């Protein structure tokens, strides 16, 4: 049996997923990316092989994704997060039409066509991007643990509004609320809603249609999910594997590419496409 791997080198975490040639998930691993991206990528690959007791050469095809996709030296092809999250989300929730990927620094919304093709996408490239970083800062300012902010915010009595567009200035608004004697829960709730506000705008701009699936590291934050569902007025798909959506999508696309390669049909085309993508200077 043949294996195919997807490696997602993100700004904080590097994750990998191994699928077999029938597209069944066989293994997944993850670790902190750290400063040396190549090493992180190699490490998750080795872990994959270890879990399955296979040698790296037994992996037929590797697709890399994430901001470090070009640093995965053993890749056959690199594919962007957006394409991969689309495919990954479809696999997790076949009814997915819209994907919201909330990362530490970037957030992205995708609208998928029936084929799974990314029909429209939008990246949060403005003030107050970086939902993850924003929550980290708020947590720091409030002296609470990042893991807890979501849960805490759910206990809010009267959420405190946070208006500033600048994530950094929003932080000082948080401080002002504390000064004014607002409870940590209420402030956190406000913070989550202020992020949700912007994420919703992002989702709307791609012309969101249900089902909407959350992916990315921050998607596990219950407070944010609640805020988003309230603002969007629909339930959201959240999977325990959602932070693996990128690696999963990469693995599945790797499989598709490998099969195309296998069939003589389009083989040449695929080759040239990969040749076409050199490591940028």
């Amino acid at each position, binding site marked *: 049996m043949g294996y195919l791997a997807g490696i997602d080198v993100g700004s904080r975490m590097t994750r990998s997923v191994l699928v077999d040639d029938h597209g069944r998930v066989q293994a997944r691993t993850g670790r902190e990316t750290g400063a040396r991206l190549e090493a992180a990528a190699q490490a998750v690959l080795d872990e994959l092989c270890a879990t399955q007791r296979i040698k790296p050469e037994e992996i037929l095809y590797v697709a890399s994704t994430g901001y470090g996709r070009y640093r995965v030296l053993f890749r056959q092809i690199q594919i962007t997060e957006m394409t991969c999250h689309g495919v990954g989300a479809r696999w997790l929730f076949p009814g997915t039409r819209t994907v919201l990927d909330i990362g530490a620094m970037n957030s992205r919304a995708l609208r998928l066509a029936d084929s799974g093709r990314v029909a429209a996408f939008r990246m949060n490239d403005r003030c*107050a991007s970086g939902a993850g970083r924003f929550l980290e800062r708020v947590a720091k300012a409030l002296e609470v643990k990042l893991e807890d902010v979501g849960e805490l915010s759910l206990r809010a009595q009267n959420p405190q509004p946070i208006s500033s567009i*600048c994530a950094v*200035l929003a932080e000082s608004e948080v401080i002002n609320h504390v*000064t*004014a004697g607002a409870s940590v829960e209420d402030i956190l709730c406000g913070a989550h809603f202020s992020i949700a506000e912007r994420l919703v705008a992002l989702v709307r701009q791609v012309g969101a249609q249900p089902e909407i699936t959350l992916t990315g590291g921050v998607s596990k934050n219950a407070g944010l999910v609640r805020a988003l569902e309230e603002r969007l007025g629909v339930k959201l798909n959240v999977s325990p594997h959602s932070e693996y959506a990128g690696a999963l999508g990469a693995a599945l696309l790797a499989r598709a590419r490998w099969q195309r390669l296998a069939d003589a049909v389009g083989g040449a085309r695929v080759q040239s496409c990969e040749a076409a993508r050199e490591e940028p200077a």
Partner: protein
Amino acid sequence: MLVAGVDVGSTATKAALLDENKRVLALALVDTGANVVRAAERAFRAALAEARVEDWDVTYTVGTGYGRYRVPFGDAQVTEIGCHAKGASFLFPATRTILDMGGQDTKAIRIGDGADVQDFCMNDKCAAGTGRFLEAAAEVLGLKLEELGEVATQSKKPMKITNVCTVFVEQEIVMHLARGCPVEDILAGLHWTIAGRSIGLLRRVGLEPEITFTGGVARNAGVVRALEERLATKLNVAPQSQHIGAIGAALFAWERAAHGEVGKRANGAAPRPEAAGGGN
């Protein structure tokens, strides 16, 4: 007679204590943190402790800094701009232009001989190119804020950093690191960018020498060097640059006291053993 000034900044709260001859008896600095009231009180107390005096010895206290509307601290409030003008021209009498870089505000101020504010400008509604911008950079690079300047001075060829947005600059830094670019070059680039931002403000008020650089960022040798390079002139930087706002506030307090005004702490708010002798 003693007077005090308390400057509640976005990141740090500073206090200064002066005697009747405007000599600085004590300076204190605490993190502002979440509770502005507490921070102001703590800084004030710290200054008192250092000078070994009690709060009723303080005739008059002036509060300043961004926290002043939420917590009017002391007997009167004056804007940071007024206080920095006052403090800077006290330490460097020839000062005509002041650049103050604090946590999330950057200000350029032009003053006359009387330390009178003639013109001023501030950065717009975003933390671009402020102290917070450097903090973010320090975090990403895993350095201490005060280390940045030192490290940057080792740079051979500064990296070009275009992002002034505090959130995006982190991504840009991460990317440069991923490309194996030396930390010192990234930092040198950052300092250069920040300098550029503030020069825009300085030009608005007119770069009249001497220029005095105040606020927390003034302690960063890298920024100072970048500014001096780009402005082709030396800057006045005081060791107590971070306290200049507080000192200015204290000087306003001194003027009020000199006009015979007496603050609430002094006139019997607190128990005063030798109240009878209290001749203020």
